[in-house]
């Protein structure tokens, strides 16, 4: 028999750290979210304001826009990463010379700090010195100005994220592919299934937990991106790439509007948890199914 006391003891340090550094600040933010508190206002003390912050948020066009922009960014970035990662993982399942070497090179962007990734892409795309604007203009006659055109800035943030994080998707999907049994594939080939049928009826269902897990971890991190985008565009032009993380930072730091910023981040956190919870339920349902049979 196993004593549950030992189980709780093993879990205790983790729970203690997460409570002290995660839950305590969370409760603080929860409380501040219900107050009106701006450190540089005429009255710099906090006042209880009920749900006023949340009521304002629902009508705050800038906030809603930044939430929408974040979701679009997260959606396009994560979908591209998973699709690209799947193809790269499939290619890595084959044998070819120098495979390990190419895999290592492909993993490299993961090792670059987000803030340095932002700087790198700024150097790539900056007007006057970056190679991307220069050659786009020279070869295709496209005027590329990150500080002027909103869609270009949006696209660049996605390209940057894809460059940085596709390796993570590739590696997780590769781990998933490598752990799949071979028999169903051989059987399907004997039965004369074509490539698409094999992908749709065998690979995809078996890989679904891995795909969902990859989406889960990537979506979560994409929605709270700050450093990279801040370094690349600073949220501009205008407010087009001012994703929620950056917007919250602006409200809390330069504007010192603590109450509003807290309400904003709680709402964002809530939305993230709901989305991830739905994904998790799908993930667990898939995992439990074979056991029930």
């Amino acid at each position, binding site marked *: 028999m196993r004593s549950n006391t030992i189980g709780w003891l093993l879990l205790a340090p983790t729970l203690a750290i997460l409570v002290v550094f995660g839950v305590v600040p969370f409760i603080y933010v929860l409380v501040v979210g219900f107050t009106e508190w701006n450190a540089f206002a005429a009255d710099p003390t906090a006042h209880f304001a009920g749900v006023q912050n949340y009521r304002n948020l629902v009508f705050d066009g800038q906030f809603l826009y930044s939430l929408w922009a974040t979701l679009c960014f997260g959606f396009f970035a994560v979908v591209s990463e998973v699709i690209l990662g799947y193809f790269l993982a499939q290619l890595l399942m084959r044998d070819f010379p120098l495979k390990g070497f190419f895999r290592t090179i*492909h993993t490299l962007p993961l090792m670059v700090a987000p803030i340095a990734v932002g700087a790198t892409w700024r150097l790539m795309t900056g007007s006057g010195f970056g190679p991307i604007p220069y050659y786009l203009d020279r070869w295709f006659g496209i005027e590329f100005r990150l500080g002027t055109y909103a869609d270009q800035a949006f696209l660049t943030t996605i390209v940057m994220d894809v460059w940085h994080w596709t390796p993570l998707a590739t*590696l997780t999907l590769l781990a998933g592919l490598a752990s799949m049994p071979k028999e169903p594939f051989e059987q399907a080939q004997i039965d004369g299934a074509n490539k698409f049928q094999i992908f749709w009826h065998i690979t995809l269902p*078996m890989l679904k937990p891995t795909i969902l897990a990859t989406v889960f971890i990537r979506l979560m991190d994409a929605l709270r991106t700050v450093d990279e985008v801040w370094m690349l565009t600073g949220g501009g032009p205008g407010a087009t790439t001012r994703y929620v993380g950056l917007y919250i930072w602006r409200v809390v730091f330069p504007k010192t509007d603590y109450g509003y910023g807290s309400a904003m*981040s709680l709402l964002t956190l809530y939305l993230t948890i709901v989305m991830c919870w739905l994904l998790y339920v799908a993930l667990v349902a898939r995992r439990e199914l074979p056991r029930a049979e």
Partner: protein
Amino acid sequence: MIRKRHSWIVSLAFWLAASFVTLFPIYWMFVVSARSRVELFGKPTFVIRKFFAENYTNTLSDPSFQKYMINSIVVATSNALLVTTLALFATYALSRYKLVGKENIFFWTITNRMAPPAVFLLPLFLLFTQGFTIGDWKLYDTRIGLILLYCVFNLPFAIWTLRSVIDSIPRELDEAAMIDGANTWQIMTKVIVPLARPGLAVTAILTWVFAWNEYLFAATLTSVHARTITTVLAEFVTVTGTNWGRMAATAMLTLVPALLFLGLVQRHIVSGLTFGAVKE
């Protein structure tokens, strides 16, 4: 036979192209780091004719750079070791014991990673400067403060990565060890750790990378003593313009330790990365 050779040539060509896309931004950063400020502007050229070493020598001889580099190494390494150990304990408990509400605890841990970091800076700043103090000593601007704080986003990640690894180790093995009279500690060190080694290695490297790369908390919760190397990168962006050369050189230098770590765990990286999604 012919078809087979044809297909590896295609693979090879594809991966050469893919590696170019991956490496080009990093190479461009290297080019910038090897040039003076004047050479930066105008038509982009990709060959380094004369290596402008000043960016590197200035960075390397800067005493604060050396200090911050050591801080980063200490913080990231201690955090990765702490996180991997605690996550191993936690996942073992979640996997092997019938604890009340353990699936909820498992999901709750990951919610700690979802919080937008910006707004939590304020309560953390207050806690670090006023809350966690003993006499004159405070958690603010200490390496131990960062090491503990990074657990908030690294522990959930580690627990989620290790869960499937521990789950996939057959229970019969630790039950057999238990019948032989081994206690929990012996089961962990003699049975679980050797079998979970690839998973542990990947968890350690990725948490190390996340801690090494963290910027926002390090920039806010330290001032002089415990600053890490990523905070230096942002300091080159100033009102009067950005010192791109120095920044690129610093970024290149911060890559070196990360690359050494990548080389060390490369073999384990695929078998260990499954994020709780491995088939049963």
